[in-house]
């Protein structure tokens, strides 16, 4: 990751790329900037009030205008508070609104991306793009802009006032600024590097903790506690050294600022004779400005480092939203069938459920090996195909092609005799049921999850589906029945319960084609039987493709495809393949042994 961060060099820190997201708030930003100007104008003005107080009341010794002075002062501070309120609420609103829009754009785009994207990028990575990167960008457009207005206008107003009142002294004070800028930039550069290192060590330490905890059992059995501790302390020592170094840099940074403002003060003191002796108020005003100028300068330097770090976020975000999906419906298809978000269901045909691979060759977009070469297979409606092979052997490839999660490199996948590309993805997906090996449920109630594939299902249909997969008993045991909350990702239910619910969900969707990715996880015997009968129930009367682990499913399949190292090595019915005594035979006998052994051990 860090390497990629170093390489990013967008023009103008990549701001150009996010302008479309800022544009809708242009008007609000103008309002915000206007009131920001008012705030800093009054900030500069309040010093003038103090100058007047000294020059007029104290030095001239008269209180004649005191009431006007007080009134004007009160008006000024009230307006200042008002403008602070207006500009801050606007800045906050713009920040969160831009963040919202960015998140929304990223999320929407993700819904259209094809599977290769999700296979190449981890969930954690994409998640961070949607939530963390976006949140940095909004504050750039609002608060950084706001700060820029405040600080630069303060700098300008204060300089103008000083120059107008006493140009010579003003120039002497302002001469200090370029020096400060050079020094600041010097430290800043080093600081950026130090901070990056600290972030990296910090994440190492967190993963050390993670490993020390998840691997505690192994650490114990190997008796390497001491070695682990030494290594850990090595990292924490490095962390301390780096942090102290960064603190030294930050210290120098802050000291430069303090020293520079004292220097400015000393200059004013030294050349005070440039101001008339009876204008002590002017003298005091110069001192205030001389010190006040350093803060905006510091901010300017800081903001550059902010821009540099935010440009990484901008880059990541724009990369995400500009990724093109590998699977795109053509314009004609969208015109007729609608897109993912606005389907034109009235134009949709029924789907029968014949699948045909016609001379299909396929290479994964992130791989270079052809995993399917000139593969042809006809799967007529109602047949049941089983795909078997070791974990990671590439059993999902055919399923991915049928579902059009990927498209063939060469050849065609035909659904009901028509190339899948001639109809929309949503049309196809709406007719496919999918049961996953690790059933994925969404937060919400059991009912929400059942309705996921078919929001219009009636109460009777739900009951029927539940009965079909014998999930009725499970559900009646839940505290609130169908309205029980399943927790995040269904964590409040057991694996077996989740599986049964996901079967019912698939049935409710009334799919013509059913994809079943069987679970390898062991569940108790009773649940196992229930799941088995549920499988038989759901594949009945549909075209089904099963990524199979259960022997019974395999044995009864109309066709078995054995996959090894990504390629289909054997094809046939169970009887044929057993007789062939090849790869399938080996795998089957081994599994059979394991199952028999487990059965004997557990039932005895």
């Amino acid at each position, binding site marked *: 990751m860090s390497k990629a961060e170093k390489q990013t060099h967008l023009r103008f820190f990549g701001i150009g790329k996010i302008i479309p997201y800022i544009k809708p708030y242009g008007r609000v930003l103008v309002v915000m900037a206007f009131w920001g100007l008012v705030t800093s104008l009054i900030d500069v003005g*309040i010093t003038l*009030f103090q100058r007047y*107080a*000294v020059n007029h*009341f*104290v*030095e001239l010794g008269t209180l004649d205008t005191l009431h006007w002075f007080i009134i004007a*002062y009160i008006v000024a501070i009230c307006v200042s*508070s008002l403008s602070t309120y207006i500009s*801050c609420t606007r800045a*906050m*609103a713009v920040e*969160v*609104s831009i963040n*919202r829009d960015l998140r929304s754009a990223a999320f929407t785009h*993700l*819904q259209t991306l094809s*599977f290769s994207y999700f296979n190449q990028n981890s969930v954690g990575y994409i*998640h961070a793009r949607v939530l963390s990167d976006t949140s940095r960008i909004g504050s750039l457009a609002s608060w950084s802009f706001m700060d820029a207005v405040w600080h630069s206008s303060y700098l300008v107003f204060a300089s103008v006032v000083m120059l107008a009142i006493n140009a010579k002294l003003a120039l002497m004070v302002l001469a200090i600024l370029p020096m400060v800028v050079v020094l600041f930039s010097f430290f800043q550069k080093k600081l950026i590097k130090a901070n990056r290192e600290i972030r990296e060590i910090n994440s190492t330490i967190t993963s050390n*903790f*993670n*490993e020390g*905890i*998840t691997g*505690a*059992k192994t650490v114990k*059995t*190997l008796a390497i506690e001491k*070695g682990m501790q030494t290594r*850990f302390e090595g990292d924490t020592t490095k962390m*301390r050294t780096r942090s102290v170094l960064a603190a*030294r840099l930050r210290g120098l940074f*802050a000291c430069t600022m303090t020293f520079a403002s004292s220097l400015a003060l*000393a200059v004013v*003191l*030294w050349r*005070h004779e440039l101001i008339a002796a009876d204008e*002590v108020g002017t*003298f*005091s005003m110069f001192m205030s400005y001389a010190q006040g100028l350093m803060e905006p300068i510091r901010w300017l330097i800081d903001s550059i480092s902010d821009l540099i770090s935010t440009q990484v976020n901008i880059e990541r975000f724009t990369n995400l939203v500009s990724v093109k999906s590998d699977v795109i419906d053509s314009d004609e298809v969208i015109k007729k069938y609608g897109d*993912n*978000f606005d389907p034109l269901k009235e134009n949709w045909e029924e789907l029968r459920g014949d699948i045909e691979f016609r001379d299909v060759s396929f290479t994964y977009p992130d791989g270079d090996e052809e995993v399917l070469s000139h593969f042809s297979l006809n799967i007529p409606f109602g047949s049941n195909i089983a795909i078997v092979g070791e*974990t*990671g052997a590439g059993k999902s490839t055919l399923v991915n092609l049928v579902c059009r999660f990927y498209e063939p490199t060469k050849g065609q996948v035909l659904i009901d005799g028509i190339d899948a590309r001639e109809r929309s993805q949503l049309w196809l*997906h*709406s007719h496919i*049921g999918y049961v996953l090996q690790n059933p994925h449920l*969404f*937060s919400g109630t059991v009912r929400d999850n059942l309705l996921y594939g078919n929001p219009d299902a009636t109460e009777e249909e739900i009951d029927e589906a539940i009965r079909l997969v014998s999930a009725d008993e499970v559900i009646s045991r839940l505290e609130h029945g169908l309205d029980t909350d399943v927790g*995040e990702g269904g964590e409040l239910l057991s694996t077996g319960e989740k599986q049964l619910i996901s079967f019912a969900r698939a049935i409710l969707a009334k799919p013509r084609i059913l*994809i079943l990715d069987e679970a390898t996880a*062991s569940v108790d015997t009773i649940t196992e039987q229930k799941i088995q009968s549920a499988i038989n129930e759901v594949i009945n009367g549909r075209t089904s493709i099963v990524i199979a682990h259960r022997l019974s499913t395999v044995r009864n399949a109309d066709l078995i495809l054995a996959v090894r190292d990504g390629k289909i090595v054997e094809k046939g019915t169970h009887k044929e393949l*057993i007789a062939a005594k090849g790869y399938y035979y080996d795998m089957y006998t*081994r599994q059979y042994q*394991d199952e*028999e052994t*487990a059965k*004997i*051990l*557990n039932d005895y």
Partner: protein
Amino acid sequence: MSKTRNTEGSFRLIWTFLKGSKAFFVISILSAAFNALMDMLSPQIIRMTVDNVIEGQEPTYSAWIMRLVNALGGFEHIKNNIWIAAAALMLVALIKVIAQYLFRVYNTKGSETLVKTMRDTLFGHIERLPFSWHMKNKTGDIIQRCTSDIETMRNFISEQMTGIFRIVIMLVMSLVFMLAMNPLLTLVAMIPMPILILHSMAFHKTVYTEFEKCDENEGKLSAMVQENLTGVRVVRAFGREKTELDKFEKQNKYYTSLWVRVGKSLSRFWSISDLIANAQVMILVVVGAILCYKGRMLTGEYIAFISYNARLIWPVRQLGRMISELSKATVSVQRVKYIMDSKEECDDPDAYEADMHGDIKFENVCFNYDNCPELLHDVSFTVKKGTTLGILGGTGSGKSTLMFLLDKLYDLPEGGGSITIGGVDIRKISTEHLRSNIGIVLQEPFLFSRTISENIGITDEKLTLSDIREAAKDACLDDSVIAFAKGYDTMVGERGVTLSGGQKQRAAIARMITQKTPIMILDDSLSAVDTQTDARIRQALEKHFGGATVIIISHRITTLSHCDQIIVMEKGRVMETGTHEQLKDAGGVYSLIYQSQTGLGEEAV
């Protein structure tokens, strides 16, 4: 648990963590105090310059200040050489900057040492906590405690505590200087201070709940994205993109609206406290001007007074926030304390490093875990030195528990029978010695995110690459490893390649081989390896470690049949004992399994 005892314990915990960093914090606070003192001096220099040099007022300072001024040549001399005043200002600034620098550096040294101590202590402690503790506690929760709670505690000490100290020192010093110049005006300046502090405290208390609500909803939004991403297959396969988007948008909008509301409260707070602060300055400016007008104050004093006041306003507003946030740290301290209060594994006081080459003997071992049903009941068997024991058993039969007891991952309670090695009760053997002499390969082995060679050689830094390769060859792993682009330097895990289950098991076996232990245990650790490789590995083990005592847990008759002795476990009891020849026709579980595994060809079809 009484509350006072609770806080007392918390303080004690913080105190122990502060070991090694206390001195740094003391230096940093002293530097802060010195910095504040110097900060007080520059307005004084300006005041004198204005009053006594520019305006030529008669000085009325105490003797030592006059001596100092006279040493510099007296006010008259300074008037003609005004650079002296400027130089004095720069000198004060220089000292101040040094103090400021020291404060920052020492405060960081203190806080980093503190964090290091906390992390090191926690890590070491966690590594030494018994295995049963690890089973009970969720990884995510523990990590949270080790990272964000530690961070909260650090902030509490190095930001809030030192911050409050600093502000109070500043406040007191300014008060002293202001009182010395003009008590009446000081009183006027101080009246709004409590209002500012209380306003800030009250606000931060209430806004805290709003922040919490935002956090909670951010969590929901985040979970929604997480679910959408992990469930991307389901979303696509059911064509529910639109529903997902609608759901997300709704929460996204709601979450945003919460922040807009917080933004309004924050802005209101800022503008109101700005108003109070500005009004305070205004009152000071007006009253000060009147005092000057009436001749009860000099111009220089007036200017100095306003600049002291300006130094106070901002810290005072922070003080309110800091005080209101103090209580947040106590929750974190409690959460860390939970870990620190858990008891580490400890050896019997007279435990020693016994010879590990003897017979292993389980005698009447009974074991249950935390009031759960009995896991082992009256288990007795002996493994003669240098022989191989095979264990066969179903899930929940207690076979792994046996091994965990032998390796002291679980402690065998008094009265639960005994386990001896060479006649010595393992309770009397030092844990570290015991474990480094027993090599175990677990069913689902854990590899560290380091390189493959580091993983294999993790128990001994002195191992050379050829030692490691040798071990890998015995474990039939070498071929797979050299096929990787980076060979033995390939990183394992998250940032490297994902090894298959079989490769992981073989890496763990290689790791065990490098340990060259007199006792080796393979806990179902060849399950993901095919039968031929399984046999090759066992042969290699036998060839190189003929003298070792080996325990193999397996379901494979081909594996078990080579063992000198086999036991069959069931529901925590030993059901059968004997050699393969004795058991295969004995009519028990073993013979049933033997039949099913050998004569299956026809049956399966």
